[in-house]
């Protein structure tokens, strides 16, 4: 992982679709913990069981969310790309990664400190509720996508 200048992170954060229409004061607060980072193709970003203390807003590139299956290796169950969020385990106890994440191609992202945000959210229910709404929507959409994946849509139904 390479880190880039702090001002890049603030700019990327303000423009990222996930934080669209968020109170500028909250954006400014978030920016204080944000860093712009990049990963090379094939680089692991985190592993299942790791402490979940940060998350990423993908700007460019693509990341595979994977499960390691003995005998089959790393199985990709989902990919995220520009505009997507990577990692939500920092928001929910026990704050441990549930999947592996590996950059499939050169990827740039904004990295935010989850523990810092949790503390701010505990102090400020308005911020906490706003984050909960946004992360819950991500979770609901992922759940729906994965439900459709399980249906074997392109099988004998057409």
């Amino acid at each position, binding site marked *: 992982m390479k880190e880039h200048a702090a001002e890049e992170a603030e700019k990327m954060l303000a423009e990222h*679709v996930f934080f669209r229409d968020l109170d500028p004061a909250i954006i400014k607060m978030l920016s204080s913990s944000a860093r712009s980072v990049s990963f090379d193709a094939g680089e692991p970003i985190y592993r299942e069981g790791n402490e979940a203390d940060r998350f990423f807003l993908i700007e460019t590139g*693509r990341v*595979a969310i994977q499960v390691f299956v003995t005998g*089959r*290796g*790393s*199985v*990709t*169950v*989902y*990919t995220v*790309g*520009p*505009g997507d969020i990577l990692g939500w385990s920092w928001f929910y106890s026990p704050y441990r990664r549930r999947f592996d994440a590996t950059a*499939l*191609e050169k990827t740039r992202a904004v990295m935010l400190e989850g523990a810092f945000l949790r503390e701010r959210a505990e102090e400020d229910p308005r911020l906490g509720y706003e984050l909960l709404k946004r992360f819950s929507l991500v979770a609901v959409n992922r759940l729906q*996508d994965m439900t*459709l*994946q399980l*249906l*074997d*849509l*392109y*099988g*004998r*139904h*057409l």
Partner: protein
Amino acid sequence: MPEHSYTVMEPVLYSIERRKRETRDTFTLELVREDGGAPMRFWPGQFNMLYMFGVGEVPISISGDPLDEAKIVHTIRSYGSVTHKMAELRRGDVIGVRGPFGRPWPLDELEGGDVVLAAGGIGLAPLRPVIYSILGRRQRFGDIALIYGERTPSDILFRTLLEQWRGRFDMKIEVTVDSAREGWRGSVGVVTTLIPGLRLDAERTRALICGPQIMMTHTIRALKDKGLTEERIHVSTERNMKCGEGICGHCQLGTVLVCRDGPVFRLSEIGTLLGKREL
């Protein structure tokens, strides 16, 4: 649309000039007329009834280039008894063909604007003639994007062609699969996950969708989230077509007969019918 110059209920004999295996359960047949005549002309989105004598008849969309005056091309996924038998066809074998039937994609309406083609599974086959048509007069269109979802990487249709098109750099192509073994470097997830990443100008974009009904339902929802109206979304519906001429009623979908009134519809025409459980 071309005039019918034959008796629509009487199959015309075509022989298999070439058979190409696309995937483990999908194959393409290139057909020429048995009597040496020119094959029928068609519009992208139309379908033919293909007759395996002694076995049965199935509706299959035309997947070839509309400007190809030598042969007619069908890409078929082996699903049922007739298509299973068709999978055994070899060069020189003869089948019956009735068609072309149905209302095509609205190519004239696409000119001057951007186009998104969303395909799921074998739904890519009826969209391929649209892509041939667009690329044949590329300068008349704005941005073109094809998003395509399949079960696994080995189920991906027209793989070589997709690579060729991607290499043109005047067309965006995104492919995603539902599941992949180690080694797949592309996207994993349903086709709708590709839509938020598209830069769409809802005022100048039209979307053409073909795939399983549930895939179309979710794709429509995602496109509406991007601002596309039902006037700008076109879908190709699949029903069990039999006669092809709106006579038998086999393919009735509410108030429409898919073989005659479709298979391509503007969403605003059938919005309430699509996905209705009772239908």
